[in-house]
């Protein structure tokens, strides 16, 4: 089993690395506890959830710490020798690493789960830099979001189930992150999909929410077909489901059926398209905003949607070799193209959204496009680091949106009708928002700058010029739409719900909220049935939200600024890269078709065009926002209504490029309706026909049996016996007629017959 391998690993691995499998296990157990006991607990189960996430966070932190130690620790020759014999994946790395004196083995710890036809499937953990990054990330963000949720969903009708689903989600994602083989990976993937469905449709009483949940799961499902097909092809090609072995075999791929590898890579990438919201399967992500804001911030911005990116990063040799990512002379490939398209179209759609969460959702789609783009141009470290930093600032942005809705805008997310001018009364939210926006736009020295810039630089240096331009244009658009959103939310005059908040009563008054003049938004947040006690806000921001909301915001805001410094090429810090490079065998210089180019050196001159465009985007958007949304009447206001071309363009964007229409009305209807009609016809005529025929046959048989067997045979026999008896009686009745003469006749007749018999016998 794992004896030999574990020995080699145990020499260097610490307790946390060995027991990293506890990280997903604790939330999984907590899920069952919440389901079983949550309702009876004083805080409705959230204690169990938060406690489990804290425990997972502690163990993840320990794992990260020990991994760092492992990377930095010198590796002895003896271990290398052992590992060479037992670890397949080490073979690739160990020779090169032995040559360069630097090699870190992943800590793989697995038990035999089940056997199918000779194929052993294991369950356990595979800890390397990439896994550690995501483990820490997921555990941390989950803990913060759960703390935030205790205030945000307070009084909700399904409070306990919410915490149960969120805990299960964390367990699922953690399972996926440290999966050593594709089966466990898919297990975690599917658990996440299930929890996404449950959480998006948390307020399923409103039809829009349940439809959004269904749209999410069906769209992602379309992609999941690719995951299964790709895994099956890889299994068929390489004969194994272990991720380390797949990577090794793909990295040294020298076979002649390259097409199969490409097919597997494309199939797996389709799953990523679905899960990570790339074009063309991005349509579910904005609709997923129907779920509660903590769900949007946890699942649909920082953790679940990066699962697709994680898959590509995890099996990078498969994609890199299969899709010829950094082959000399290639300047486009599928991943980069899809990523690039996603960046642009999502950024475009973010301009026409009135709902603040939808702006953030499209922003997420766009940033996921960046990550895919990064992976597509060979910037592995950049993309993974962008996952890391993006998680913090995007989660912060969503939690800010939730904070605004909870406190400032009467549970509305509509920027145009219920927000505006909130910056004075919600200072913490405002500051965190600004910090996160700056990080998102890639402003220098905020975290997003370091990660995004690496992607953009790699695109330029790795001969993916087109995508370089796409990336920097995307940066400009990001700056622009975020400026618009910021202006609408925090500046200008307070409107609607915000007006109530800013000019009216304190956010923490316990009187009932006034009946909303606008209809309940699609989020279906139920009005509090009874006055709900909000917890205390932070002392220096008394008008802002409660501490459960603002403290996580602050933490994330700080991280949005400083997390980038883990890997800042601009400042010559390559620590993050150093920690994670063993996941794909960096540095690699020689041998095999798998050659990821190292990240380029950073120069300010190379980054300059991007930064200029960001500034340009910001300024233009500021001007336009002031002009269109400000108080002063300008010629620009109502432009899209007056100008036909601009109006058509606006409508095109508002209708999301008519993609939803294409998917739902054209594709789905043309496939589903005939199928459903055929199924209905089959049901009515064939199945029901068979059932009815059987029924009719049964009844007919019954009738026949009744008529012939029962009436005829049985009754006939019974009646017959009666008739026979009566007949015999009638016949014999004449013997007892009372006629003496007849008696005499019988007597003499009998005597005659007897005599005759005697004579005949004796003659």
């Amino acid at each position, binding site marked *: 089993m794992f004896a030999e391998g574990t020995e080699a690993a145990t020499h260097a691995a610490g307790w946390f690395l060995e027991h990293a499998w506890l990280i997903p296990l604790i939330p999984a157990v907590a899920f069952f506890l919440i389901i079983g006991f949550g309702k009876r607990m004083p805080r409705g189960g959230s204690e169990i959830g938060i406690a489990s996430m804290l425990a997972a966070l502690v163990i993840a932190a320990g794992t990260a710490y020990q991994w760092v130690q492992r990377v930095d620790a010198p590796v002895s020759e003896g271990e290398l020798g052992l590992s060479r014999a037992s670890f397949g994946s080490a073979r690739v790395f160990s020779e090169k690493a032995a040559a360069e004196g630097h090699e870190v083995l992943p800590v793989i710890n697995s038990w035999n789960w089940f056997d199918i036809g000779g194929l052993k499937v294991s369950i356990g953990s595979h800890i390397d830099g990439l896994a550690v990054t995501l483990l820490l990330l997921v555990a941390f963000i989950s803990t913060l979001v759960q703390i935030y949720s205790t205030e945000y969903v307070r009084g909700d009708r399904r409070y306990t189930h919410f915490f149960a689903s969120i805990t299960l989600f964390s367990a699922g994602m953690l399972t996926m992150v440290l999966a050593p083989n594709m089966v466990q990976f898919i297990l975690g993937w599917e658990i996440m999909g299930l929890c996404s469905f449950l959480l998006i449709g948390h307020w399923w009483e409103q039809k829009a929410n349940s439809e959004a949940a269904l749209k999410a799961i069906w769209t992602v499902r379309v992609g999941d077909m690719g995951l299964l097909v790709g895994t099956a092809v890889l299994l068929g090609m390489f004969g194994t489901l272990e991720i380390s072995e797949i990577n090794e075999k793909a990295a040294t791929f020298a076979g002649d059926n390259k097409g199969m590898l490409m097919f597997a890579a494309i199939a797996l990438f389709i799953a990523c398209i679905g899960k990570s919201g790339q074009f063309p399967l991005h349509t579910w992500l904005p609709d997923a905003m129907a779920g509660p804001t903590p769900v949007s911030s946890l699942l649909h911005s920082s953790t679940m949607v990066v699962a697709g990116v994680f898959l590509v990063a995890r099996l990078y040799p498969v994609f890199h070799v299969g899709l010829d990512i950094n082959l000399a002379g290639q300047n486009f490939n599928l991943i980069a193209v899809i990523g690039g398209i996603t960046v642009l179209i999502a950024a475009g759609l973010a301009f026409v959204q009135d709902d603040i969460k939808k702006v953030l959702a499209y922003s997420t789609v766009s940033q996921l496009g960046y990550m895919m783009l990064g992976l597509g141009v060979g910037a592995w470290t950049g993309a993974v680091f962008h996952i890391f930093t993006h998680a913090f600032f995007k989660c912060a942005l969503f939690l800010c949106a939730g904070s605004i809705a909870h406190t400032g805008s009467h549970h509305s997310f509509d920027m145009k009708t219920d927000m505006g001018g909130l910056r004075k009364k919600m200072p913490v939210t405002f500051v965190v928002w600004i910090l996160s926006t700056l990080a998102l736009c890639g402003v220098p020295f905020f975290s997003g700058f370091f990660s995004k810039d690496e992607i953009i630089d790699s695109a330029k240096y790795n001969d993916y010029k087109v995508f370089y331009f796409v990336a920097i244009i995307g940066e400009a658009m990001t700056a622009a739409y975020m400026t618009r959103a910021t202006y609408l939310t925090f500046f200008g005059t307070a409107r609607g719900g915000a007006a109530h908040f800013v000019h009216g009563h304190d956010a923490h008054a316990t009187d009932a909220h006034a009946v909303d003049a606008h209809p309940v938004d699609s989020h279906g947040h139920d009005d509090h049935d009874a006055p709900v006690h909000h917890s205390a806000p932070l002392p220096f921001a008394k008008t802002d939200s409660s501490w459960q909301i603002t403290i996580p915001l602050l933490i994330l805001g700080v991280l949005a600024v400083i997390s980038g410094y883990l890997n800042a090429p601009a400042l010559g810090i390559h620590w993050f890269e150093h920690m994670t490079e063993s996941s794909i065998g960096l540095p690699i210089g020689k041998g095999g078709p798998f050659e990821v180019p190292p990240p380029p050196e950073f120069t300010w001159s190379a980054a300059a065009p991007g930064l200029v465009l960001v500034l340009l985007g910001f300024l233009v958007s500021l001007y336009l926002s002031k002009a269109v949304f400000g108080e002063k009447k300008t010629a620009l206001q109502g432009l899209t209504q007056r100008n036909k071309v601009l109006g058509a363009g606006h409508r095109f964007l508002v209708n999301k490029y008519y993609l939803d229409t294409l998917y739902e009305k054209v594709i789905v209807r043309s496939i589903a309706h005939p199928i459903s009609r055929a199924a209905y016809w089959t049901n009515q005529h064939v199945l029901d026909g068979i059932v009815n025929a059987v029924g009719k046959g049964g009844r007919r048989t019954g009738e026949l049996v009744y008529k012939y067997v029962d009436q005829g045979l049985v009754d006939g026999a019974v009646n017959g016996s009666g008739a026979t008896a009566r007949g015999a009686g009638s016949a014999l009745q004449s013997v007892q007629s009372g006629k003496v003469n007849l008696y005499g006749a019988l007597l003499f007749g009998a005597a*005659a017959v007897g*005599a005759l018999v005697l*004579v005949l016998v004796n003659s």
Partner: protein
Amino acid sequence: MLLASDIQIAQNIGFGIIAAIMILGALNVVRSSNVVHAALSLVAVMAGAAAQYLLLAAEFVAVTQVLVYIGAVMVLFLFGVMLTRAKLGKDVDLNNKGGAAIGAPVALLLFGVMAYVLVKGFEDTKLDPDLLPSTTADLSDKIFSVYALPFWALSFVLLAAVIGAIVLARKD
């Protein structure tokens, strides 16, 4: 002296004639539509029977037959006929409907069987022609010695019959 063996032919002819009369008389009894005619035919049959007894050298029996049967029983029958208001003259209501249909076959069957048996059994057995008639003294000896018990039983039967007849037929 005429021995019996000498007058066999005459006996046969006599038998034949008497037998014919008897049979005809019997047929009349069962087929006549006049009750009195039937009764009188029965008398003829009984008389014929007595004659046959004589041919069989049973003189006492023959005489007793005449005295008792014809003299008493037939008179009784005629009294019965009279007392039951039998229709004198032709009476159409004397036969069973379908009685002939049942009776004839039975009778014929019976006769067939008996005839067959008799012919088969006794083909040519002849009666001893030289047998002397028995004397009454021997007969009475037989009755009162060997068959005394039946005689007494018979006397009781007759007594019972007489008493019974009186009891049954008296008017109260």
